[in-house]
């Protein structure tokens, strides 16, 4: 790779495509900026004029409710005009290529594209072809990356645990298919977390996962021992049909986060989940709704973090 595709020629963040390759200072800058936006979202009038007159296009080639909604709220709180395009149901199904769609929307004077796509690398392709003043935010691509999710997770961890060095973090579940896990791993290692663990059966682990700087566990009791943060991943329904896992029941028995398994973690450990949750599959309801769960605050922080990313890309923070 000749240069980081996310940075412009002067080293400024032009797109947010992946956590990988971003320096620690950039991540910390996003988190610090997000902190200032938390107070905005708690105010009576929840708007700031940072993106007034700018057009943000939500381009979702794959369905999403939570991510699309929080991006929309974030953009509106920054006073941007938001256009939601459910592309799966329009031009692409008429045979238009991805880059033609982008060219057409660029001609409508878009300032920012928030892109979700089923193919790894689709936002990178878009970023290579947009004009110099258009910014691309990856809202999840294939199995590759989901950087804003990882950033809001880091924000949540910092909120409850104050700093990163010294922490032990375990990510549990379908690492193989998870863009969230990949981005979390890069974010955690970049921010200097002492120990990043992944816990999963071998059928849900990518081939070279140890090369990402994580320790691999296949046993929950060992993997969760003394961790400060437990991140549970969603298990997609189609993964439970027998090819990768025999059943949801057996998965829950071995890898579902129950109070008994959580007891192996540090007593002050927090429990996170990027959502949407499968109760009784990867997480027990008593844990999801329990005192250690920070799953709903994650969603709230997600708005502030996405406001921070958009304002930084627009050169306003």
């Amino acid at each position, binding site marked *: *790779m*000749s240069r980081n*595709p996310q940075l412009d020629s002067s080293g400024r963040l032009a797109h947010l495509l992946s956590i*990988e390759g971003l320096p620690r200072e950039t991540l910390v800058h996003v988190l610090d900026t997000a902190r200032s936006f938390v107070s905005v979202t708690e105010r009576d009038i929840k708007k700031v004029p940072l993106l007034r007159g700018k057009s943000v296009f939500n381009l979702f080639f794959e369905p999403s409710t939570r991510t699309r909604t929080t991006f929309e709220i974030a953009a509106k709180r920054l006073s941007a005009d938001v256009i939601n395009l459910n592309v799966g149901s329009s031009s692409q199904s008429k045979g238009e*290529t*991805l*880059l033609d769609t982008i060219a057409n929307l660029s001609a409508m004077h878009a300032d920012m594209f928030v892109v979700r*796509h089923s*193919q*790894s*690398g*689709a936002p*990178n*392709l878009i970023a*290579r*072809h947009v004009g110099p003043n258009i910014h691309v935010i990856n809202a999840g*691509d*294939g*199995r*590759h*990356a989901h950087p804003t999710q990882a950033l809001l997770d880091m924000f949540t961890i910092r909120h409850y645990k104050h700093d990163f060095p010294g922490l032990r973090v375990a990510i549990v579940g379908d690492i193989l298919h998870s*863009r969230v896990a*990949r981005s979390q791993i890069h974010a955690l290692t970049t921010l200097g977390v002492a120990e990043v663990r992944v816990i999963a059966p071998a059928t849900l682990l*990518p*081939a*070279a*996962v140890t*090369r*990402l700087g994580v320790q691999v566990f296949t046993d929950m009791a060992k993997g969760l021992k003394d961790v400060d943060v437990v991140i549970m991943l969603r298990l997609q329904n189609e993964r439970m049909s027998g090819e990768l896992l025999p059943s949801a029941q057996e998965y829950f028995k071995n890898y579902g986060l129950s109070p008994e398994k959580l007891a192996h973690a540090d007593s002050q450990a927090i429990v996170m989940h990027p959502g949407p949750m499968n109760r009784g599959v990867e997480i027990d309801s008593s844990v999801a709704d329990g005192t250690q769960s920070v799953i709903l605050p994650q969603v709230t922080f997600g708005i502030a973090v996405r406001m921070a990313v958009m304002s930084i890309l627009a050169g306003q923070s």
Partner: protein
Amino acid sequence: MKTHIAGGRLVDPASGRDERADIFIDGSEIAAIGKAPAKFRAERTIDAQGLVVCPGLVDVAARLREPGLEYRATLESEAAAAAAGGVTSLACPPDTDPPLDEPGLVEMLKYRARNLNLVQVYPIGALTHALQGSKLTEMAELAEAGCVAFSQGDAPLPDPQMLLRCMQYAVTLGYSVWLRPQEISLSRGGVAHDGEVATRLGLQAVPAVAETIAVSTILLLARQTGARVHLCRLSGAESVDMVREAKASGLPVSCDISANHLHLTDIDIGDFDSEYNLVPPLRSSRDRDALRAGLADGTIDAICSDHTPVDDDAKQLPFAEAAAGATGLELLLPLTLKWADEAGIALVQALSCLTSAPARLLGIPAGSIVAGARADLCVYDPSQSWLVDATRFRSQGHNTPFAGYELRGRVLYTLLGGHIVYE
């Protein structure tokens, strides 16, 4: 037409010859080497001082995209690309549209190629109907029409049973079977080597074991049936070891690799660059080094271009959706020379992988310079460096992972049957 190639360095891997010698061509044949025949009056003299004169290159895998895929390339454009690359004979895989499973298609292709007269085209026939892996083709008819071997292209055979039958039938008629080893159940949907790059980029993997399991199955069945098997485009280190062992035990097996895999690894994919979406996928540097070692010790017989012209639109897609392949005819020679340079391989050995060895694999009269043979020759400047600019390719495919590379070795003349087809 009488042509005199004067003062060049003649490199003929078939005879091991590497010396300064003139070549005298009369009509379509080499009349003499060294001394002019009596009363030879050249109508054209090519000054080859400082140049290398070698047999015209023989490429065992170049897709011409005809019939059916003319929007990607035509016989005209790709034959011109071959001539510009010093390639005078090429074998084309059967994966056209429709595939080469009917004698009429093969005859038409041969006929069109003969009329163009830029390169000798040797079609490889389909092993099974429509490459679907269920019905054997009429191999005898296809061979009569001009097919030199039989293959599935990149299409899988459904199971070892069908593979066994293909081998049994081919060996009955004395044809060789060309197979690209890949176990489909381990590779379906995959686009990248199962290493760190695929893990980081979230690309679905084609594990190396998908290739080695197939190599193992093919070698076992080849031993049982006595079929002459050629393994196409090996990519993994273990595959090379298995072929080395099989050859040592006397099995008549051969293999090739693409010039791309001689130089590139999965790291080159970088930021999802679809020019590096190749079949088989680029593997690790350990695998690449094993391919180089296999070439050096003769385990791997030939280097091919695996020429696959793709239209620009088909590359401008997310990595896994982009069409795989690279155009390669015009880079085959310089990429081979680059390897020879880097690995300290003698020129005569390096060029054997492009001339005598592939000619032997195809069983065609090409790849050597002897008096009385067809004058298929390549004359190149070994010292000229040039920058790869895909827009200047003769090929209709401008897709190359080597754009911007500085390569050494430039073809100056290509002669086909004594005729200058490129200069």
